[in-house]
């Protein structure tokens, strides 16, 4: 019988299942040990248990933050608008500096692969691996305190995500219109304008709106290092131990982000 040589017996199947289960068990045990070790090393050994005090003291410390500083609200209007503007202008500037990065970073359109492609990919990784606060520190030292440094930091941090996602969108386009334009004698510029851009423009716009929403969050904290906006007010309240003031600023940030999310949700929906 030929069939029996290749077909599995019941015993084989059961053994294979048991083996798989044993491997899974080992994996979970390893994972559990890893978590225990992490907690031991970071929480148990690294925390200053003496300073925390009793449970009631913890509750008392946290309760400082309850309550609002109503008097602060009029002073929040200008920084809130500034935060919003940093996010908007930063995203816009980010999009502008993205254009060469997208062009160089998409394998199917990059002009000179051995040089331009790595260049684009490195700039994308660099942009994303440096935290926005660090970007802000760099630009504050370069152009001084204020919103302009924040705008530059947001733009630099946005490049990575926008360019990476957009370049991938270009790599995944439908090649058929491109072939049609090449066949009718179109130049590379015309292939880009008529074959590629109409396909990816809505995608890129969606990516940019999503990044803008994230940038509102980012610009809200940039003031911590002097790059303008609500973060600066937050920092001042914290330094003067005005905890209700801190809560007020957090609520303002929350409201702003909420607006951003709503606008982002509906505008991206309208794109499709």
């Amino acid at each position, binding site marked *: 019988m030929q069939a029996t040589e290749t077909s599995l017996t019941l015993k084989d199947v059961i053994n294979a299942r048991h083996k798989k289960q044993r491997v899974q068990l080992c994996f979970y045990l390893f994972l559990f040990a890893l978590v225990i070790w992490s907690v031991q090393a970071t929480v148990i050994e690294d925390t200053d248990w003496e300073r925390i005090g009793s449970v009631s003291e913890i509750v008392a410390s946290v309760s400082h933050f309850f309550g609002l500083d109503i008097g602060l609200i009029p002073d929040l209007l200008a920084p809130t608008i500034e935060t919003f503007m940093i996010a908007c202008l930063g995203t816009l500037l980010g999009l502008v500096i993205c254009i060469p990065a997208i062009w160089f970073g998409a394998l199917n359109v990059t002009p000179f692969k051995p040089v331009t492609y790595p260049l684009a990919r490195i700039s994308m990784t660099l942009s994303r691996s440096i935290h926005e606060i660090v970007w802000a520190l760099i630009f504050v030292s370069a152009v001084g305190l204020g919103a302009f440094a924040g705008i530059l930091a947001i733009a630099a941090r946005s490049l990575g995500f926008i360019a990476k996602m957009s370049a991938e969108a270009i790599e995944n386009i439908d090649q*058929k219109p491109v072939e*049609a334009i090449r066949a009718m*004698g*179109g130049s590379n*510029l015309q292939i880009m304008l008529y074959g590629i851009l*109409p396909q990816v423009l809505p995608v890129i716009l969606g990516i940019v709106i999503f990044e803008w929403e994230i940038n509102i969050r980012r610009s809200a904290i940039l003031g911590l290092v002097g790059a303008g906006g609500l973060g600066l007010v937050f920092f001042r309240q914290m330094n003067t131990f005005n905890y209700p003031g801190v809560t007020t600023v957090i609520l303002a940030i929350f409201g702003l982000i909420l607006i951003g999310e709503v606008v982002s949700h509906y505008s991206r929906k309208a794109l499709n």
Partner: protein
Amino acid sequence: MSVLSVRDLRARYSSNGPEILKGISFDVEEGDFFAIIGPSGAGKSTLIRCINRLVEPTAGTIHLRDVDVLKLGSSDLRKMRRHIGMIFQEFNLINRMSVMDNVLSGRLGYVGPIRSIFRTFQDKDIQRALELLERVGLQDHVDKRADQLSGGQRQRVGIARALMQEPNLLLLDEPTSALDPKISREVMDLIRSIATELKVPVLCNIHDVQLAKETCNKIIGLQDGNKMFDGLTPDLDQSSLEEIYAMEVL
């Protein structure tokens, strides 16, 4: 004098890959409606794409009205391509653009970079696009987006776009494979009547042997990169068909 003369054409996609075309020769005369038939994978699409060099042949010669196609530099190649209209199996339209913009895009070979950026076409081009859309029966769909049309309508946009180029050769790559039998016949009839009217020779890949016999005056049969038949449509009999499709019969 033949319009298109192909000699010993060979093509492969990579240097160590299989040879897709193994020395194909044929001539297209003025007024010909030339069908290329054969089983899937025979090299029909590759052959037609070699004519306008969307695929670079590895050997052989192609002469289009005494121009040695394979010797053209990239700028001359683009100038030559703008006189070769191409119609595709999947229509290859720009889906997010309007029907009008799709038809006008057929003029891109004649349009400079600045005009391309702003999509400003000359009035006479717009006039011609309107006439062509009326000729293919789409005068009521000018401002619709291309992806809102049915398959048959999209192929009509493809036809109008190809004619916008004022072609002196039409290449058709399975123009009816994505369409149902009734629409297929309508589309082929339309292409044939326009080609006759404008005196443009046509080279057409086609799956449907029956439709090829009804539409075309000459037929080439390909099988696995070799030419198995080349002659007038009435000469294509059962035995030559069996030879072309031998691999499928087995």
